[in-house]
């Protein structure tokens, strides 16, 4: 890429995410790259394929703003709260546009990312026994073990155009440290053609912060690193700030109605220049008790 590896989130999204791309914003409850999701919306990306094990608020926003044609996922909901209404509205009523879906199980999505990271064309698993999912998803097939004759499920590797994750720390060379619930983040970055990592903190040398067997992504496998403190909100960053459970609950009311949703998005996302302004806007409207970056101090 032409920008420096350490760049702003605006630059990273402008350069690396294109209309029509298959993008995977990952983070399993922890470290969800919410700020990056907002930036995709601000830059009005269209016709995206959204890949994510658990499409939750971050994809509800993109879908409701009309950015997506298709979702590949294994569990779509607002964790601990209920439905994601924009996602359901798109599937059930094609609003604001139809959303095609390709549905798997968690074990399968994880295996598909692993296959993608491993340079394999497909993943093999014991899965979907007796489930109706394979009837509706032609990407779930079955093969026989060449040694035992057992029947196993298989699905194509996932290789997104762009992986986007949030992590705790990176250094100036772009080496990234992830800790706590690490989800599928290493796999999705290695499976993707390009990758953006937003981080809480830039440190001088990651080796001063990481033990030998820590989950580290070397800078040379990452396309861009952006310093976005609090960028996982309302998800959390272990060691920095907690999950904002009240925001997840508030989202239920914000997103239930199309107009309320649009008004909220226009006010807090489209009318703000970046994630810091978004946080200020939320704080000004009393929606968050404290900005994530302040939680840390």
């Amino acid at each position: 890429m032409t920008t420096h590896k350490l760049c702003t989130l605006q630059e990273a999204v402008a350069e690396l995410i294109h209309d029509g791309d298959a993008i995977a914003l990952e983070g399993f409850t922890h470290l969800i790259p919410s700020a990056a999701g907002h930036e995709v919306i601000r830059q009005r990306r269209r016709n995206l394929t959204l890949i994510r094990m658990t499409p939750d608020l971050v994809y509800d926003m993109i879908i409701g703003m009309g950015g997506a044609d298709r979702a590949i996922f294994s569990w779509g909901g607002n964790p601990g709260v209920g439905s994601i209404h924009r996602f359901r509205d798109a599937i059930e009523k094609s609003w604001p546009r139809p959303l095609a879906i390709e549905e798997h199980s968690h074990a399968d999505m994880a295996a598909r990312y692993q296959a993608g990271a491993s340079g394999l064309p497909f993943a093999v698993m014991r899965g979907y026994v007796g489930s109706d999912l394979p009837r509706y998803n032609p990407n779930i097939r079955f093969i026989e073990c060449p040694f035992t004759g057992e029947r196993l499920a298989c699905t194509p590797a996932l290789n997104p155009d762009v992986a986007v994750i949030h992590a705790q720390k990176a250094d100036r060379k772009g080496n990234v440290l992830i800790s706590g619930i690490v989800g599928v983040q290493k796999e999705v970055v290695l499976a993707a053609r390009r990758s953006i990592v937003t981080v809480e903190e830039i440190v001088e040398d990651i080796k001063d912060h990481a033990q030998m067997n820590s989950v580290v992504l070397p800078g040379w496998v990452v396309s861009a690193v952006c310093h976005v403190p609090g960028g996982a909100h309302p998800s959390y960053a272990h060691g920095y700030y907690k999950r904002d459970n009240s925001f997840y609950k508030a989202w239920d009311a914000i997103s239930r109605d199309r107009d309320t949703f649009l008004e909220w998005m226009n006010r807090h996302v489209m009318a703000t220049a970046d994630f810091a302004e978004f946080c200020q806007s939320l704080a000004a409207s009393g929606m968050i008790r404290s900005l994530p970056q302040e939680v840390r101090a």
Partner: protein
Amino acid sequence: MSYTPTELMTINAARKLRDRQVCFVGIGLPSAAANLARLTHAPEVVLIYESGTIGARPDVLPLSIGDGELAEFADTVVSVPEIFRYWLQGGRVDVGFLGAAQIDRFANINTTVIGPYATPRTRLPGAGGAPEIASSAKEVWITLRQSPRSFVERLDFITSAGFLDGGDARERSGARGAGPTAVITDLGVLTPDPVTRELTLTAVHPGIDVEQVRAATGWDLRVSPDLRMTERPSEQELAILRDLHARTAQAHGAAAGGD
């Protein structure tokens, strides 16, 4: 001491867990029950969450499957691919503990759609970890509230296999494990008939009569001739469960506690 139907269900589900069992825990009611077991009679139970936390010991109940609380006090935290491959598919899980939106008489469950798949009346969250939990754990327990809308004659979509069409259908399917050996509801406990595998009411909670359970079931419910009554929640069980919910509410904000 009085108690709510949800407390009753949670306490009865918790009682089933034995100490040192390895339990793959779904979020919500299964998580509350598994942690109640850990805080009462099963201190060494091993709780695994699909977020990759092994040996989790949350002090408050997680609101999501990946709360920091789960990682903080776990024996180890591994990646999501690893948790499914090495730990679940690897055959190390004694009990898969699931919730569900709908269940049928053979304990198949639906968490995907109500109505046709392409044009759903209600779009549910989807499979999550359930299809492989249901076919890999040594046995499966399901906990959900019993009503004609949740206990249905015919599922629009089988997300995760119970006994499929009953009889030996599950064995023939290649699924591993014994399948759903218990369904714990707010009214009682259902277990599969050893031959037909049809869910049979084998216990009712105190104060619940069989007709009430029949009325809450969308098919012609079979009732065991040896129907027993579950033990009333003890004061200790209730106190510990309520403490847990109170701590949880305080940690997450008021609305997160209770159920």
